[in-house]
């Protein structure tokens, strides 16, 4: 048996640093919502003219020469010959004009993707998404409450879940600031999936702790907890490793459109695994001890 809980203050410190960084990033940088939520238009073009790359500011100048077109940003997509142009709103005919104009200048310009989302729809989605997160969280909480029929277990699991969610959202706030990553419906999906992953591991280790406490009610909580962690840690890490293999492969090698989705799931999986053993369990121990001493 390894005395994992000896270093619990260190675990709290590590989590504290990550939480602090995430929350400060959220406060200072905020999140970059995609057109799914804000409404607007996006045009992705492929420029296959054999040249290395095209200067985005020159492209912007060209596009702005067309009347009544307001480009809000132009980005080149990494490792491809694709460029993403964003607009507040744009008609089908204006889009055709832009492609024509770009084709004159660069040759071999192809439309890869074009999306427009009405502003009312974005708001609607925002509300629905909030409802989905709320209901998922509520159902998982109910499930935890049912599983453990005890406040201290439930609270510890919830804190770990919150910890994971905040770190995931916070890291995307940082990605948004430095890599221009946007928050879309897929990111929300990743957040919801993280909620369930987070609970997944916590349940396994809590099951063990409860089982051992029942078998030997007079044992010291710290011993019981250490034993349970020893028993479940390799399983928890091994299982996460296999998921991490898949998600790392997908993040590095997978298609562009699901790259950041994979990254979000990857971060969720890592924090979910960490928090089960190093946030939920130490917290539970603190709660258990306080209960004993009173």
């Amino acid at each position: 048996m390894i005395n994992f809980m000896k270093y619990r203050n260190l675990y709290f410190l590590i989590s504290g640093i990550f939480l602090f960084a995430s929350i400060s990033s959220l406060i200072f940088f905020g999140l970059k919502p995609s057109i799914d939520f804000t409404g607007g238009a996006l045009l992705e073009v492929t420029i296959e003219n054999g040249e290395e790359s095209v200067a985005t500011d020159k492209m912007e100048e060209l596009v702005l020469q067309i009347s009544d077109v307001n480009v809000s940003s132009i980005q080149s997509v990494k490792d491809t010959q694709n460029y993403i142009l964003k607009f507040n709103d744009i008609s089908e005919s204006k889009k055709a004009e832009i492609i024509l104009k770009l084709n004159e200048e660069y040759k071999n310009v192809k439309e890869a993707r074009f999306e427009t989302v009405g502003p009312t729809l974005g708001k609607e989605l925002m509300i629905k998404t909030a409802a989905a997160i709320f209901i998922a969280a509520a159902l998982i909480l109910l499930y935890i409450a049912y599983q453990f029929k005890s406040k201290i277990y439930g609270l510890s699991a919830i804190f770990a879940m919150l910890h994971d969610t905040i770190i995931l959202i916070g890291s995307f706030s940082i990605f948004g600031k430095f890599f221009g990553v946007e928050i879309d419906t897929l990111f929300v999906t990743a957040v919801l999936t993280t909620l369930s992953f987070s609970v997944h591991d916590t349940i396994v280790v809590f099951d063990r702790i409860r089982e051992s406490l029942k078998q030997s009610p007079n044992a010291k909580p710290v011993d019981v907890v250490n034993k349970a962690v020893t028993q479940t840690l390799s399983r928890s890490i091994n299982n996460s490793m296999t998921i991490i293999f898949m998600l790392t492969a997908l993040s590095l090698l997978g298609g562009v459109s699901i790259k950041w989705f994979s990254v979000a799931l990857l971060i969720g999986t890592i924090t979910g695994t960490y928090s089960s053993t190093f946030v939920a369990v130490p917290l539970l121990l603190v709660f258990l001890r306080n209960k004993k001493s009173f």
Partner: protein
Amino acid sequence: MMVMVLVGFVVMIDMPSMPVKINYKLPQFLGGYEIKYDRIIGGYDLYALNGKIQRDLSVRKGLDIAGGVSVLLDADMSNVLDADRADALTSLKNVIERRVNLLGISEASVQTSNVSDKYRVIVELAGVFDTNQALTTIGQVAKLDFRVEDTENTDFILTDLSGANLQKATVVFDQNETVSTGEPKIQLQFNSTGAKKFKDITEQNIGKRVAIYLDNQIVIAPVVQSAILDGRAIISGQFSVDDAKILVTQLNAGALPVPVKVLEQRTVGPTLGQESVNKSVFAGFIGLALVILFMIFYYGRLGIIASVALVIYGLITLAIYKFIPVVLTLPGLAGFILSIGMAVDANILIFERIKEELRLDKPLSIALENGFGRSWDSIRDANLATIITAFILFNPFEWAFLPTSGPVRGFALTLALGIFISLFTGVIITRNLVRVFYNR
């Protein structure tokens, strides 16, 4: 024990039938010799299966993979009476389907949704990239008009009676007092100006045909039997109930015209999606290889068995995608690849438990049985939370307060299927494989 061995064999016999289906559907991935090999084992079973699913020989691709246009239209119902709105929406869907067919688009889907006072149509056209043409064709307001035969009976001439004068079309059943046949008929109800115009038309054209055109396409051309004075016309003919309903829907498209507005539009080019799929599939294989190496390195012979079960998991899952069929989107593919990583979870839980039992100096056979038996609760509990989330993401009952985004649903569906199938392969199949190959 005998029964369990038998179950093991049944599972073993079942299994080969799966790869054959996949071999058939994905010849580019798997060599021809494998088809022959599997046929010998699983012969009759898969023959029946193949017959059933012959039409779905390939995985259905979502728009984000195949490329195409997806449009969300908002129907403006402000000029339609509350009671008629549901009918108007059905008619709108029908009209759009007709137009899509006229464009010659084979893989199209038109769906409607109605949440409180929001009436919407979702149009998905695979393989269409000229959004401009598609949108103008789809977005037009349906135009219904009445035309009369010319003197030579060769052509129809436009009249001033149009869809705006028609209040509603309904299916009625013959209720003649003397002989009630119960035959379906179509009733047209005109408004007051329409009634007057229709009276003039019918008076002047008794014995001739009056044709009703929708979007310049003939819908029906009944012969006028007598002058209709009250604006209430009955069209009879040898309609089946279904035919009558379709005709009424078409007529109502003109009677209850609904202007539409594009709320959202997404066009994906033909290459973008396929590139992403190729890359993601490659990533999936790399990930799978890593997982298998890891399992074998860590658990030795048990790891080999888990890897076999994992490959079986992949094959079963693909077969099920084709059976349902699941429309595969990129997030769906991500869900599938993720689920491969999760599928060994049950195995890991079981193997760790077996190791523990062995540490307590229990004999191997008991350690194995206990490992499988005692891990079940944890496996079930741990997966339930993911199933809850997948349920909310998929939103199977189309609850209005939750999002119903196609890509998100794709992910939720593959994730949930992954959990159920992996419980089967991870527990039942592994258990039988272990019994057959590990006890010796």
